[in-house]
Structures are given as C-alpha cells and as structure tokens.
C-alpha cells in the first residue's frame, strides 16, 4: 500500500484508539460503527451530528435554567436526564459520567456545584466533538486519497 495511505490509516487508527483509551468513547460507539454499512455509509456521521445538535440545545436550556432567579431543579434534572440518555447513544462516556455527577448536585439543589458541573459537562462535550471531528476529517482524507478505513476492531 502506498506509504502515504498507510500513514493516513495509522493516523486514523491512533485517533480512534485514543478516543477509546481516554474513555471519551466506549463500546457503544463501536456498536455504531458496526451498524454502518453500504446502505448507510454516513450513518455514524449523521448520528453524531444529530447528537451534537440535540445536546447543544440541552446545554443551552441548562444554562438558561440555572440562570433563573428561582431555579427549577426538576427541569434541570429532566434535562440532565435527557443528555445522559442521549450521550449514551453514541457512547460518549465522559459526557454521561459528567451528567451523573451533575444530577447528584442537582438533586441536592446545590446551585454552585450545578454550575460547575454544567461547565464541566460543556467541556466534555466540546472535547468529544473536536475529537470526532478530527477522526471524521482523517477518514475523509483517507478515503479521498483512495485509501480505506481500517476495519473496526472490537477488542480494544
């Protein structure tokens, strides 16, 4: 194989591996990769895009809720729950964990901690988003260069 392609492939693999190694993504993401097929070649990209759109809205709602004079902790809790569920769909593990911590403080009605958690949550989202964007970009480059994406290996 063209060394250039090989190198691109390696870069892609490294990126992907780091996502898992750092706990940013978990098995569920691998499951998604397995779901993608010829009929739905953009399945993952689409699903991930859907997730980010949805989660950005939720984050926005959370900021707005916590900024209220009388914070509606129940509503906050509901949003967190939604985000938790959503993040589990693509395997964004760290986001899910951040939601769990957030929820605990929310139930304790600790506003300060809630704000901190929200910040944390936002950062985790940005992290997984940028990492995935990098991964997809590498994929595009690889495919554009005529290469193919290495097969997903479950045993990671």
């Amino acid at each position, binding site marked *: 194989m063209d060394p250039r392609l090989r190198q691109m492939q390696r870069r892609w693999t490294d990126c992907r591996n780091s996502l898992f190694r750092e706990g940013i993504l978990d098995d569920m993401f691998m499951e998604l990769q397995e779901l993608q097929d010829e009929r739905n070649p953009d399945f993952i990209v689409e699903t991930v895009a859907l997730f980010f759109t949805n989660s950005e809205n939720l984050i926005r709602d959370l900021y707005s809720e916590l900024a209220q004079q009388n914070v509606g902790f129940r509503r906050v809790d509901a949003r967190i729950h939604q985000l938790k*569920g959503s993040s589990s769909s693509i395997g964004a593990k760290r986001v899910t964990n951040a939601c769990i911590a957030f929820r605990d403080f929310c139930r304790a009605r600790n506003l300060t901690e809630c704000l901190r958690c929200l910040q944390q949550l936002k950062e985790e989202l940005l992290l997984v988003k940028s990492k995935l964007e990098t991964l997809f970009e590498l994929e595009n480059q690889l495919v554009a260069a005529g290469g193919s994406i290495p097969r997903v290996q479950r045993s990671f």
Partner: protein
Amino acid sequence: MMESSKGFSSPRSTAFPAGLRVLVVDDDPTWLKILEKMLKKCSYEVTTCGLARDALKLLRERKGGYDIVISDVNMPDMDGFKLLELVGLEMDLPVIMMSVDGETSRVKKGVQHGACDYLLKPIRMKELRNIWQHVFRKRIHEVRDIESHEGLEGLQVTQSGFDQFDDGHFFSGEDMLTPAKKRKDLENKHDEKDFTDSSSSTKKARVVWSVDLHQKFVKAVNLIGYDKVGPKKILDLMNIPWLTRENVASHLQKYRLYLSRLQKENDLKISYGGMKHSDLNPQDAARALSRQNSINFEQNDATNCNSRISGNNLLIQNLNSKSNEINPRGTTITEKSSPGISHSLSPLEQEMKFPAIDGITPGSYSWREVPEIQFHQENAGNQPEDCFRRVAVPMGGLQNHVQIDQLLPVTSISSKAQLPNLIETKPLNVDYAISSFTQASPVKTRIDSFPVPTKIHTGNQQAIQPPSTNKPSMESQAFNPSCVTNLESSQRNFSSTTPESAFTSPDEVLQVGWLQDYSTCLGLQNIEFPDFGDPSMVAEVPMHLYTALKFDFEQLSDQSELPVINQGLFIA
C-alpha cells in the same frame, strides 16, 4: 408531527420473526435513529415516533398494524408508563420500556404497569434481536387461554365474528384476533406445531375477555353501580364458574383506567354547544358530569343506557324535544356525541326522522372506516343539507374519526347479534349520519330518555318511541351487540325480512361499547323498539331513505365482521 420511518405496517408476510412490526417511541432523535437502524438490521419493520401521542395515534389508526412497541420511559408529552398502560389496555400489545435510568424502582414500576421487558440504555443490537419472543409468548398464551377456557361462547364469537376479519381492521393487534385466526396465523407464520401442547394443563389461566364475557362484566358493573363495584360483587353477578376473583379484579382495574382516560379525553375534547347534561336523569347526570362526557359506562340500568347514548340519544333528544326549533344538525354537532350516533341521527333526523337507531352501529364499528368529517360545533345553525353534502360516504367507507376514540368500539359483535328490523331499516340513516358527523367526542351522556319524537319517524312511529322510560324495552330482547357496533350487520339484515329483535339488553350494549360507539348503542337502547319482528316496520321505512342513503351493502358486509370489542380490554 409524527416521524415515521415507514408508513403503515402491513400484515407481515415474511417468516416470523423477520418482518416483526415494531413501533419505537423515543423523544431522543439520536436514539430513534440508532434503534431504527438496529431493528432494521434484525430484519424487523420499524416505525419511529418522537412523541407518545403520535405513537398512540398511529397505534389507534392502525390496529393490528404493529406487533410490539418499544418506548422510552421519559418523554415530554406523556409519561412512558402511561403510554405503556394505554397500549396494554387498548391494543394489548407487548411493550418494552427503555431508559438510561436503571433504578430498581423504575424497573419495578415498568413491570407493574405491564411492560414485558425493561431495557437499559445504551441498548445493543443483540438485545433487540430477541424481542420477538414477547410477541410469540403473548400469542401462545392467548391461544392457550382460549383453549382452556373456551367457553363456547368465546370461541363462537371469535370464530364466527372474526373469520372475516381483516387483519388490522379493528383495533387490537393481531394478538387480539380471535383465537381461531390467531392460531391460523401462528400456524402459518411460525411453523408452530405444538405451541398448544401443554397449554391446557399448565397454563396459568389467562382469561381472554371475549365480547360476551366483557358484556357480562359491564352488565354486572352497571347493575351494581360503578361506584359501588367490587370484584367479588361482579364475579357473583356474572356467574361464570371458571372465572376467578382475580380475573375480574384485574379486568376491573383495566376498565377503570380505560374509563378515566376516556373521561380525561372527553373533558378536553368535548365542547358542547349547549347540550349539557341537564337532561340526564339525576343519576346519570351526576355520573356523566362527574366522570366523563363520553360514554358513561357506569350506568347500570336502562336509564343509564340512555345517558350513555352518545350522540345518538342526544340527537334524538334534541330532535324530539325541539324538533321544530333545533336544527338537528346543529344539535348534533354540538353534542359531539359519539360519532356513530350523533352522526347518524342528525342528518337523518331532519329527513328521515329516524331516531337513535342511526346512531347505533355505524359509528361504532366502522369508526375506523368512517371518514372524518369535521363538524364544527358551532354549526348549530347549519342546515342539514350541509351535512348531507359533506358527507356522502357509503357506510362501508365511512371513516369515523372519533376523536376520542380511537380505540373504540367497534368491536366485533358476535355474529349472533342481529339488529332488529327497526334498526335495520335505519341503516340508511346511519350511514348518513356517520358521514355527516364526525364528532369524535364521546357521546354525551346527556341523554335521558330521549324522546324520540314521533314525528321523526313518519313511517315507524312505533319503531321509535320516546324513551320516556328509560328502561329499555329492549331489555328482553337479545341485544345484539352487533347492532350496536355493527352497522354492517344491520345493513346486512336490512333486506332480510326476519327482523330479529335481537337487541341486547342495554347492559350488554353498554358493555360492548367500551368505546365510543358505545354510546350509540345506548342510544338504541333507549329507543323503544316495540316490535322488531314486525315486518311492517320495515315496510314503513320511507322510500326516500333508501334512495337517499345508498350505503354500500357490499362494503358493509365486508366489514360486517363483528368488530371485536375492544380486545385490548379483554385481557385480564
């Protein structure tokens, strides 16, 4: 806004479990997309919904169109547990709950509400591969129940009534189809040789609430009085040897849930122009007001029947009482009575003056068929002609959109139900009525004895008499559930010369009607049909009726399958 990845689910034609028709409900778009993909990979037919109410709408519109429902627990428009409950009651489909929250209490709640499984997110495809087992299990149990309990009754009803059933024609999924059909289906699809093998002996008896059984149940409830009802009392009254108190208790619970849900829906939807319950007998009125606008199942006696009558009665009443002043249409519309009843009456009232009968069946069973014609309640002033013009749907094709109901009624009534001549003659009206009215709202209970104006029915005054006494003159007659719900059967009988005074007793009628159509039935009840067997009645039907309403017998007969009474409700 309903997102469906696919439209209607047609009856499965592939080998089970492939082609399993799954309805997925989740407010998270990401999960919806993923689940759809996973299920499709399992070779299932998938429909997705982002809202619980959309899911219910789909389920109701397409009874028998889905095999299983998978729903998230947390949804913005409705609690997942509530959806679970409704689906179990109305459609009796297996429901799998999902959530990212795996707290024991939640899982427990899911099970308590009837979920056949509870999946934790993230869900893997392998967990979805085997969901067909829930569908299979349900079928097996039902077949077994039927076999072990089968009362001739149940079986008869089912077999005769359902043989011609169209798959999905009536509510309740395939599972609800009669045992006979189900068995056939199972045999065809599953290659199952002996799922019935050990059935009889071991089964934990799962009662199948057949039409007759349910009728007896409702009758008993009515006799005792909904407020005072209790499983033991009902059991005693029903006098079914093999039925246990537990069976009744669980059925009663479902019934209550069903009624309260209807009531809530009615409260929301009903907007009566002015027909209040004032006319109801005190008892009924109280009930109606307090409970629901729709069918009032609680009535125990004939009077109740009256109140139950949904639009029909109202219509009649209106017509009767103020036939001169009221525009039947107007009243009907405002009444928003059950689709069938009111519909039928109004348009006809003016011309044909057929009382309640109209309301009876058409609406009930063909609720799905009847096209929805929206009448504004404010239409009081509308001319009947308007109604006529609007509707013109042959019976068979009527699609009654009862707002309320989607699940209603039209259950198949055992074939033995036969409409009395009287009713038979009316079909025309019904037809008419149905088309003209689309009131989905539940029947206004206001009916008390609705007076059937003598003038209404020029020809057959006898046929319809103001039911000043609630008591159903029909009591003695074998009420034919079918008549209530089955316009078709009436249609069918239309030409027969042997009217069968087969009016089921009001109670029975009531029973049949869980659903909206119920009211129509009731309406009938109130009307005294003195002599069904009287051929003269038929003869007296004004010719113009016949010509005016050309309902399509063929269609009707096709649909004559006795609607299965809310099968969903039957599972004990």
